[in-house]
């Protein structure tokens, strides 16, 4: 079943910049999709479109136009892990993770004990148990990324959008993030992530979407789409894709 579908989606910013041009593809429920493309290819705009920030009638979520959903309904189906988040106020880790429960709260409702339990379990899942009362302004880069992931886990959505989840991580935190995302994927969560880390994409993705200058270059199963020719065309520089022991390596 396709959980998300795009049909001829174009988007032009008010400044006149044409970011997406007639992009069409679909995402199967339970798949893990890597969004690849050079800087300025339109990856962030595409994530914004999937999130519903640029209302588009040609995007469907679970068979219905995305624009027909209320904000909280979308929040219960799609969670976002941004590339980074600038913290100006020193919420505790638990408070910040609880923000992920907002789509389930009424207009004037505050989180319940059950919400706190879900947030606590999300923190434990990413390895931040015991730090619930710590301030979010005191986190290292790796912990910061794990916290963003914990909030999205607490959101209990069916789809997780991730904007370059490993861009600021050292190898150990990159491996930890990969392991966490593999765990979420194995439990049925649909992942859609943009990345410049092609080997991270090779390890995590079942499907690949390639964007070049706002246009769809290719979309499909990783094994069918990723090859030396496509990667070289996508990035405009010589690239190689090889398979060793069943693992795809791109460089």
């Amino acid at each position, binding site marked *: 079943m396709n959980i998300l579908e795009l049909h001829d989606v174009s988007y032009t910013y*008010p*400044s006149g910049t044409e970011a997406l041009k007639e992009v069409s593809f679909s995402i199967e429920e339970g798949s893990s999709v890597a969004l690849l493309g050079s800087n300025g290819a339109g990856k962030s705009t595409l994530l*914004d479109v999937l*999130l*519903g*920030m640029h209302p588009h009638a040609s995007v469907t979520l679970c068979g219905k136009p995305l624009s027909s959903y209320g*904000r*909280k309904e*979308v*929040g*219960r189906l*799609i*969670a*976002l892990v*941004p590339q980074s*988040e*600038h913290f*100006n*106020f*020193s*919420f*505790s880790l638990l*408070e910040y993770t609880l*923000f*992920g429960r*907002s*789509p389930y*709260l009424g*207009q*004037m*409702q*505050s*989180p319940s004990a059950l919400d706190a339990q879900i947030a606590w379990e999300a923190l434990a899942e990413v390895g931040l148990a015991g730090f619930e009362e710590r*301030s979010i*302004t*005191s986190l290292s880069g790796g912990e910061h990324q794990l916290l963003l992931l914990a909030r999205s886990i607490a*959101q209990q959505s069916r789809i997780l*959008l991730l904007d370059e989840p490993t861009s600021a991580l050292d190898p150990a935190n990159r491996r930890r993030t990969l392991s966490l995302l593999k765990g979420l994927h194995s439990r049925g969560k649909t992942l859609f992530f943009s990345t410049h880390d092609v080997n991270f994409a090779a390890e995590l993705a079942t499907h690949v979407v390639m964007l070049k200058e706002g246009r769809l270059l290719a979309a499909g199963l990783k094994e069918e789409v990723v090859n030396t020719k496509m990667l070289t065309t996508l990035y405009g520089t010589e690239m190689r894709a090889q398979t060793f022991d069943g693992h795809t390596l791109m460089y």
Partner: protein
Amino acid sequence: MVMATLLFALLSLFFGRYPKPGFSIPLDWKSNALMRSILFNVRLPRIALALLAGSMLSASGYAFQMLFSNPLVEPGFLGVSQGSAFGAALMIVLGASSTVAVQVSATVFGLLALAASYFLARRFRFGGWLLRLVLSGIAVSAIFSSALAVVKLVAEPTKDLQDITFWMMGGLWNASWAQIFSIVWVVILCELIIISQRWKLNLLSLGEKTSFSVGINVKRDRTILLVVATVGTTLVISITGLIGWVGLITPHLARKMFGSESSFSLPASMVIGAFFLLVSDTIGRTLLPTEIPIGLVTSLLGAVIFIIILSLKHQEGKV
């Protein structure tokens, strides 16, 4: 904190220059008509106005800081203070005989400044929504500042200019029950709306994409809260004149004491704001034989507290 504020409110009823300067409890107030009038028609409305204005300015400051995700903004951020000041000065120069006319003009021009900031921000083609609002607020403030300077230039120096100057320094000396009843219902409604949306304020202080992804209609909710906070502020300063620092300092103090999550720190900030303004007014009306405008007292106390907070912040590395 609430008890301390109420206790100080009770005590400040007996601070003043009658029957003797400083603190005195007049035991003969029942038989002394003048004393009764001073207590119930002068000091009590003044105390009530201080509590109302302090809590509203603080709630607005808190909301503005969360909405702009910036702990250094305050309620006058979108040109509202300068707009109100211009409105009041214009009415004084035009020879308005009643303070109500000055209040109405200050309110109308404060709201006009907000509307101008909002519509300018929509027309700007530079940066995100928040940055555009900030930039349009700066432009609108500058325009009303210039207009205010022109009004002061043409003001009659022995009376009108003095009235304008006093209005801009803030003061509760004109407080009356009639004035309070003219704004109290709307101000309390604004306060209740802000309190009811305290969870949303947390979310709106995050990045725009994050707020959106957790189910918030960012533009709509931010606009509603900005309008509510500004209306409350404008109504208060239409009576009190410009009072700085309350909306800037008290949210910081509340967050220091109760953490950044708004469920506790927003109501705490409002109580602290009420207490802060009451203390400032009591000092202003009792310290010297002549009254010190409350805006001067809040500026002095606020600056000292600000320095202390920033020093603590530097040590702890958090707001």
